[in-house]
């Protein structure tokens, strides 16, 4: 993994330029090999499969068992009877097939980097918060703050999601087969959100950057969210991603609305006072 060369990162579309000016963004640097390793990551074999019955376990015990099994090389773990408990499957920093047979409570699959997770039920608030990479598929509905602050990976909900999906999102993709609540994409900074159903009020409020696609109706746009032209490249990307998401829904791609940032609210320092006033 550490042998990735600088030209490779450029081919992959990752940044390696030296930063100038004011920014909080940290770009990829292939020379810093320590960034590729997690001390708690494990090498697993997907063919080694096992189960955990979560019925009488606390969430801390379930997560400890997952970690112990990964350390033993198990690459496919099935959680039975999760019982909507909170914070299950958090902090997984390696590849893993995690299958949840049932529903999760709040903060499930948070801060993960790499696993593929399938949840047959629903999830509560803040599913996959801070996800770095991997894929999470929720078969039913999800609560609010779905994919809050994710930085990468694919997060898919086949049902409907609550409010503030993709809040503070910094990368990755969120795909929702059903409807979404208020403030979807609130303060989103990068990445893409796809809502195939209807969306509630204040969509993309205070959006810094990133793109939101909506298949249904939009109740209202938030501050600085504006409609943009849907291109052929967008449609090609949507078709590819929705196919991967396994959402079985007939979609009229040409009717999808594309929302981006008007870029009038952020980086005030570059605006004259009159422009700033107009933006507010």
């Amino acid at each position, binding site marked *: 993994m550490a042998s990735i060369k600088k030209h490779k990162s450029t081919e992959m579309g990752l940044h390696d330029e030296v930063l100038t000016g004011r920014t909080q963004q940290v770009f990829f640097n292939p020379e810093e090999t320590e960034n590729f390793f997690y001390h708690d990551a494990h090498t697993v074999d997907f063919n080694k499969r096992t189960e955990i019955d979560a019925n009488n376990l606390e969430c801390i015990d379930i997560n400890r068992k997952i970690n112990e099994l990964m350390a033993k090389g198990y690459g496919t773990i099935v959680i039975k009877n999760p*019982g*909507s*408990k*909170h914070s299950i499957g958090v902090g997984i920093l390696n590849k893993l097939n995690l299958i949840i047979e*049932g*529903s999760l*409570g*709040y903060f499930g699959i948070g801060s993960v980097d790499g696993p593929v997770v399938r949840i*047959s*039920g*629903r999830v*509560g*608030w803040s599913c996959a918060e801070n996800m770095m990479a991997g894929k999470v598929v929720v078969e*039913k*509905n999800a*609560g*609010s703050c779905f994919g809050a602050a994710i930085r990468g990976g694919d997060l898919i909900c086949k*049902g*409907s999601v*609550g*409010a*503030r999906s993709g809040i503070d999102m910094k990368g990755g993709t969120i795909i929702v087969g059903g*409807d979404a*609540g*208020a*403030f979807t994409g609130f303060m989103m900074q990068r990445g893409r959100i796809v809502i195939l159903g209807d969306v*509630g*009020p204040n969509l993309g409020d205070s959006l810094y950057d990133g793109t939101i696609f909506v298949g249904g109706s939009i109740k209202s746009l938030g501050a600085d969210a504006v409609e943009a032209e849907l291109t052929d490249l967008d449609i090609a990307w949507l078709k590819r991603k929705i196919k991967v998401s396994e959402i079985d829904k007939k979609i009229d791609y040409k009717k999808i609305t594309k929302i981006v940032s008007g870029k009038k609210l952020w980086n005030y320092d570059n605006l004259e006072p009159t422009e700033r006033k107009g933006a507010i």
Partner: protein
Amino acid sequence: MCGIAGIIHKGKSTNVGGEMQKMLQSLKHRGPDSTGYALYGNGESNNYILRFKVGENVKEGSSAVMEDESIYQARVEQVNSKISTSGATLHKEEKITPYSYRYVISYDGDLLDLAKQIESVEMTEILSLGKSLELIKDIGDASVVADQYELGDFAGTHGIGHTRMATESGVDIRSAHPYWAYPFSDVSVVHNGQLTNYWNNRRALEKKGMRFMSTCDSELIAVYLADKIRHGIDLEEAMRGSLDDLDGVFTYLVATKDKLGMAKDHMAAKPMVLYESDDLVALASEEVAIRTVLPEEIDTYDPYEGEVKVWQA
């Protein structure tokens, strides 16, 4: 943080006390200070059930002022006298704790007059006065309160409840939820959130003669709804109005003799998970509470911002 929960069975009576106990106990982590139940039972023929307290629970953790228990009996005798002079007839008298009582009374007059008479006795607060509502709240978790008040076998059609983490007011019974929509029989409210225009609304409602017993912002919802009902406004319409008139972040449940409703503010900042079938509706701040009564795999969802729903028992 606080946790709220409710369950309503459509067209049948079950052990709603035991169900609510399980649901609320699973939400203990959201509010360990006090627990309250508003349970809707099968009633005592056509009589009123009066739940009231003449003092506070002063056990460890309580912010209430310590009193000598002997004073409670004197207050109860005064309450009995007020009931008698108001024209009500006392049929059954149960002392549940040293400070908490359950009476069965018959009364044909104005409930407001009766309530005012009873509450004129020092430190006395009516928790509920209705034909099916029994409102119980005390310090401790759901099991502690249920055991203390013997709620485990309570039969009824529906109920709402609350686990409280005290933030805006003290740890005492008067600041605990649910709140009765004084003086309307059988209307109760539980709330999770903060109301930021509490004092403005409270002053306006007090000018109209509405009564507040605590400084807990959640009481405002009960009083607000009571004021609307007093002016002939339908419960669901009153709840819709509350979304615009009450400022802050909140999700609340309200129950009447035969209905259970929920309302969620425009920001949807407070959680609520909902399960609905042909037989029952169960809802709670967290799905883990619903799982205690419906352990099998079920389809649940989060109601959206600005949503108001009402179900019939």
